[in-house]
């Protein structure tokens, strides 16, 4: 027996085990049974080409399995992680940092790795994590206390751990990292604690830093002069939602967080680059190719941390490589992703902080945060936020989870920086709770409501709108069968007609959705999976 066991293990060592080389991630569109990266694809489209679930049979979806967790999901530890799936194994992160590997068809657990973040952690907005990245047999996860760690995907063994910033200073890592070639890209959150932000690439093999791009230009770097005095030191520029990658251009696109202090712009005169901007970086060197700032001199906490969606469109008759983003500031933007040229910008929700955009896409500023407090639309959480959008190349529409008709009273205050303390320079009232307070809502939709909106990139027009009484923190998923899967705070999980917004199917999951749905297949069967409340729910068609 022992001899045979030895033989088997020797074979195991020799056999190249289930691997995910980067090519597999880059070709995700041709490999739809797997979900190998945060958005399912490097272009950020969250579009699945699986075609078993259709508008005709979607009403036959049934619950296949549930992963119950013990994490207190609401209001503080929202389940924001997108699951990854490879070869029938699903990997998810329960808040804050518990990784679970399970059978994607049955929900049975293989292993659990519970990372215990330091008590010094200071997450601004909940003990959350947005998911994992995967390369070869290694999983990558950011931790609430400021580390990026690597785990063996086969047994959860810790491979390396790299510190991105000290939790005592407010650094945390909640972003799902992005794997590009042999590197893992990530950066720290902490925009409400006066961090000095950056996006960096780490060797997937060792965790060693390969390059670093300062989202707050350091002395001597271009853009440093957009910060008056010493204000750059605690300028924020956090990273907390995953970017996208174009293999042909070899460019990484990533949205940068708000300027610090959030609601008081006086101590930081200037545009405050590269906060509230989209940056395009060379994937090998981290060198800036171009940037576009959506909210110069932000006073509203308008992080530009939305997932940038890359698409090749026929745009007003001409082929265009574009990057699209529906921004927290209430405007939908289409940019040329080769040059960064502004092509289109149009509001998709009520906006009063700017009366519009000029021909370069710069906002015409009409609203401010003031000492006595000013009402400004949209509210501090924005017209959309980290909840991922989706794009269907079939319908040509961008699907965006939205908060409609929201406003805040923005108040500015002089607040000295103190290490580890909240550094926000004032406050913003919420006419909707930033976190779902519980399952009961008595707030009337007149005071703000939620919607999934389908936007036309050529015009910025709203093609259709699916209205919800309460707002939504849920990502959306588009499929090649013209279905959009979406959730919301109320607890409903929907299949909508991608061309009309009509409800094709809905089910009640009893908890708010704060993560993005994924589609995958095991043994030829398609599944749709989404976390809601404390649990992960997975659906498939009824077996014959």
């Amino acid at each position, binding site marked *: *027996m*022992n001899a045979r*066991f*030895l033989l*088997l*293990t*020797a*074979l*195991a*060592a020799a*056999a190249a*085990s*289930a691997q995910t080389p980067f090519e597999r991630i880059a070709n995700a569109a041709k490999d739809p049974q797997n979900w190998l990266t945060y958005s399912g694809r490097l272009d950020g489209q969250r579009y699945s080409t699986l075609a078993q679930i259709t508008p005709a049979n979607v009403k036959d979806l049934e619950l296949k399995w549930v992963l119950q967790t013990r994490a207190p999901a609401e209001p503080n530890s929202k389940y924001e992680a997108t699951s990854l799936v490879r*070869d*029938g*194994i699903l990997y998810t992160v329960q808040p804050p940092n518990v990784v679970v*590997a399970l*059978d994607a*068809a*049955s929900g*049975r*657990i*293989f*292993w659990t790795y519970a990372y215990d973040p330091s008590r010094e952690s200071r997450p601004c907005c909940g003990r959350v994590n947005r998911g994992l990245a995967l390369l070869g047999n290694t999983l990558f996860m950011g931790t609430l206390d400021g580390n990026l760690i690597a785990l*063996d995907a*086969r*047994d959860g*063994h*810790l*491979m*390396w*751990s790299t510190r991105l910033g000290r939790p005592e200073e407010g650094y945390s890592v909640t972003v799902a990292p992005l794997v590009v070639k042999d590197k893992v890209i990530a950066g720290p959150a902490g925009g409400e604690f006066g961090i000095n932000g950056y996006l960096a690439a780490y060797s997937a093999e060792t965790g060693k830093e390969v390059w670093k791009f300062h989202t707050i230009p350091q002395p001597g770097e271009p853009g440093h002069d957009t910060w008056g005095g010493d204000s750059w030191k605690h300028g924020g520029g956090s990273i907390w939602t995953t970017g996208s990658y174009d293999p042909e251009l070899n460019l990484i696109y990533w949205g940068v967080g708000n300027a610090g202090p959030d609601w008081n712009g006086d101590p930081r005169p200037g545009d405050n680059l590269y906060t509230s901007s989209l940056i395009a970086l060379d994937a090998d060197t981290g060198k800036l190719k171009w940037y576009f700032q959506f909210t110069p001199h932000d006073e509203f906490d308008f992080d530009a941390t939305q997932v940038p969606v890359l698409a090749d469109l026929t745009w007003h008759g001409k082929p265009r490589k574009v990057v699209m983003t529906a921004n927290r500031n209430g405007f939908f933007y289409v940019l040329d992703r080769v040059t960064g040229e502004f092509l289109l910008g149009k509001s998709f929700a009520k906006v009063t902080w700017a009366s519009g955009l000029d021909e370069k896409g710069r906002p015409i500023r009409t609203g401010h945060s003031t000492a006595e407090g000013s009402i400004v639309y949209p509210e501090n959480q924005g017209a959309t936020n980290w909840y991922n959008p989706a794009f269907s190349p079939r319908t040509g529409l961008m699907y965006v989870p939205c908060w409609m008709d929201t406003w805040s009273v923005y108040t500015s205050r002089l607040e000295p920086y103190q290490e580890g303390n909240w550094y926000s320079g004032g406050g913003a009232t919420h006419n909707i709770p930033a976190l779902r307070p519980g399952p009961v809502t008595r707030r009337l939709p007149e005071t703000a409501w939620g919607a999934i909106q389908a936007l036309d990139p050529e015009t910025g027009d709203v093609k259709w709108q699916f209205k919800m009484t309460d707002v939504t923190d849920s990502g959306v998923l588009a499929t090649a069968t013209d279905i959009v899967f979406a959730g919301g705070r109320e607890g409903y999980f929907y299949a909508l007609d991608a061309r009309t917004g009509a409800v094709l199917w809905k089910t009640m999951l009893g908890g708010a959705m704060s993560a993005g749905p994924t589609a995958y297949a095991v043994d030829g069967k398609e599944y749709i999976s989404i976390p809601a409340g404390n649990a992960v729910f997975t659906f498939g068609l009824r077996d014959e």
Partner: protein
Amino acid sequence: MDFTKVVLASLLIASPIAAQEGHGVSPADLERGMQIFLNNCAGCHGPDGDLISGVALYSGRFRRAQGDNELRRIVQNGIAGTPMPPGNYTDEQAGMIVAYLRSMAATGGGKLTGPPGNAESGKAIVEGRGQCLECHRIGRQGTITGPDLTGIGRMRRAVDLEKSLVDPDAEIRPDNLTVRAVAADGTPITGRLLNMDTYSIQILDARSASLRTLKKDELRDYEVMKKSPMPSYRGKLSEQEISDVVSYLVSLKEQM
């Protein structure tokens, strides 16, 4: 597991306090208490309870506690102003932990009897002649078909490690079981047991070193092995060499 039986017997005879307060302690309770201790306390206190200076959890004597009630309170509430953290344990779990602390005193802390070992020589044996890395991982070396030995020194007492080497069949932890199965087409399957229910078994497949679900109704046969796939090193390594290997394993305290 005979260890707990011995412990329980001696606990009742040799430890009047435990006998008096620790009524209703079963071998299963002690086993559970040991697991909680190794998973949640040994990281600071060491598996032998002797790593924090001035604190000797193995000795049965405590600076801050007299009886079991006080000990339970420390385990649940921690010690304010010190690194000793509060733990979210039920009264029942706290009782199991305390029973285990008492049992450590009853077994004299489980000290080794062999010659003093040399960790350097032990390392050479583990990586060379012992062929341990054919089945085990230590840090970035080895394979993952057997239990991960990275950090094993934080989790196990020296006596337990020694026993694993000379008598692997004596005790196989529930985390370290091996499944042998035969697929419907006759293909043999071997792997570490990760999870099991009425219909399926989850394993880390030894052949492919990958995660795999076996559906019971698709197997010709399956069993959880009672014997360890690990060879006994009694006779294969000298007493001195065994001590060296144990010293090396004890020194493995890092997580990666």
